[in-house]
């Protein structure tokens, strides 16, 4: 792009915009650190004084919060594992192997992303109940993976296609069986995509709500998003602890994003704009 005159002026403008944009996040953290009697005062305190972890200890006193956080961690990791396990072989097959119907498969995967999960929720409930997986964490992992799997294949496919044919052929000729080729040649090529999909699947599993509320009615196996929602609904919302929970739920998101930023951004833009 063209040279930028006065770059610091742009930094200032962008900084002000970013600050305004992130105000809700600041407000969440600030509220979570206020003393209970300071939360609802008008005019509000822009900077909490004194800082206190009071809301956090009250939030953690709530029954089920620890359990719900653990459930969400388990669900998210399960979604990552199941998505990668199913997506890698399918991606290789549709990207690299000539077979009938692979074009149709890719198209259906594109269309699958358009489905509103609420439409799937009721029939999925019935299906999962047949196999006794409602009110289990595994059931939620399965449900969430329906959302990540099509996207995973769409993001990974261009990576496999970009790999030179000769590399795979050579490995095959060298007597490396197809599983060996997948493991030693294809997987390393997919690495950035796998990291992107891993991060994305984790975030999706962590933030998913529709299946959490429709498939699991037992609080013992509900994700933290559902628990957060039940706190909001209560009369006379207790904003301090609520913002403390919201902050706790946001921390893994920020960590995962900070660690995998490069891959996630690259993978998402690749998968979204061009397939």
């Amino acid at each position, binding site marked *: 792009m063209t040279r930028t005159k006065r770059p610091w002026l742009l930094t200032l403008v962008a*900084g002000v915009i*970013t600050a305004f944009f992130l105000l809700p996040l600041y407000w969440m953290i600030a509220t979570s650190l206020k003393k209970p009697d300071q939360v609802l005062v008008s005019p509000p305190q822009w900077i909490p004084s004194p800082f206190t972890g009071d809301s956090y200890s009250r939030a953690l006193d709530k029954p089920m919060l620890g359990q719900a956080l653990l459930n969400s961690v388990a669900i998210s990791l399960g979604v990552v594992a199941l998505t990668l396990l199913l997506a890698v072989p399918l991606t290789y097959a549709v990207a690299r192997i000539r*077979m009938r119907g692979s074009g149709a498969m890719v198209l259906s995967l594109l269309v699958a992303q358009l489905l509103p999960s609420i439409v799937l929720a009721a029939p*999925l409930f019935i299906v999962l109940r047949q196999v006794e997986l409602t009110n289990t964490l595994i059931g939620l992992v399965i449900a969430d993976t329906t959302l990540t799997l099509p996207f995973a294949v769409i993001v990974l496919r261009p990576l496999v296609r970009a790999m030179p044919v000769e590399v795979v052929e*050579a490995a095959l*000729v060298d007597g490396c069986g197809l599983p060996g080729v997948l493991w030693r040649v294809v997987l390393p090529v997919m690495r950035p995509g796998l990291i992107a999909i891993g991060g994305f699947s984790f975030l999706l599993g962590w933030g998913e709500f529709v299946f959490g509320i429709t498939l699991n009615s037992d609080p013992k196996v509900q994700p933290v998003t559902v628990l957060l929602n039940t706190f909001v609904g209560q009369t006379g919302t207790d904003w301090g602890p609520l913002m403390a929970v919201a902050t706790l739920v*946001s921390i893994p998101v920020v960590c995962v994003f900070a660690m995998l930023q490069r891959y996630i951004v690259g993978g998402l833009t690749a998968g*979204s704009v061009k397939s």
Partner: protein
Amino acid sequence: MSLQVKAREPLKAVEKTETVRRGRSLAVRRTRAGYVMSAPALLFLGATMLFPLAYNFWTSVHDVAIGDLLTGDWQFSGADNYDSVASEGAFWHAVRVSLVFTAGSLFFQFTIGFALALLFVKTFPLAGLFRSLMLVAWLLPPIVSGTLFRWMLDADAGAYNELLRLVGLDSLAHNWLTDPSTALPGVIAANIWVGVPFNMLLLLVGLQSIDPTLYEAAEIDGAGPWQRLRHITVPMMKPVAAAVLLLGLIYTFKVFDLVFVLTGGGPVDSTRVLPLYVYEIAFKLFQLGRGAAAGTLLLVIPLIVAIVYVRRLRKEGAT
């Protein structure tokens, strides 16, 4: 690779038919391997997506209440459920709310996202940091974003009302989400906040792919910034913009959790978008047949979008 081929050359005469045969059986074996590799994922999606969709349709043409679910005693009812949903004022109200919600969200997500992309495409100190920080807003679970905006838009202690008071617009400050006339704009505002970073990111990638020499040439020819925007940036960005709007339309039309936590569809139905309407019939009233019919109707718009999308991809030869 080429080295190996050369080493085999002395055996050419014998090898030729051999390789042809081997090649063919290899191809067959590979195709078979392809099906084997696709099978787990396809079976999975068949069970968790295709079957539920078919089941949903099946349910929608039967008369099913929660009790019938256990007995399996379903009466075929043809299009009755569809008739019943479509004759309900609440359904059409939800359609209208969804359209306003989607149109409002898309318009502002896109324009704000585009403006920010134009800013962030320039090189200046800390640009990368600011951009990443904004993306966090988009990756937050929608339930968290919804909770945040409930708090931000709260009547007395809400930060936005306080900002309005600070700039002297006291009269505008009120409880946005409990007033039927402002609840929908409030929900849309929250959804704009969620969607802006994604729009910005994709549009930014599009901007970065425009050849910089175009701008240089235009500048030499004496084109001002406005002309360059109009005659280079806008036309070059059309394909990316179309993709972003299409994706935005699909994502926005199915938004459930954000609205659910912000207002739950209220006050007095003012924010009851179509997915919430489906949820209430199926999971609150347990009218499974009608819920399934409403769900199928909810698929109509994404389906139209999908057809447009697939056609466009076909035309570009991307698939």
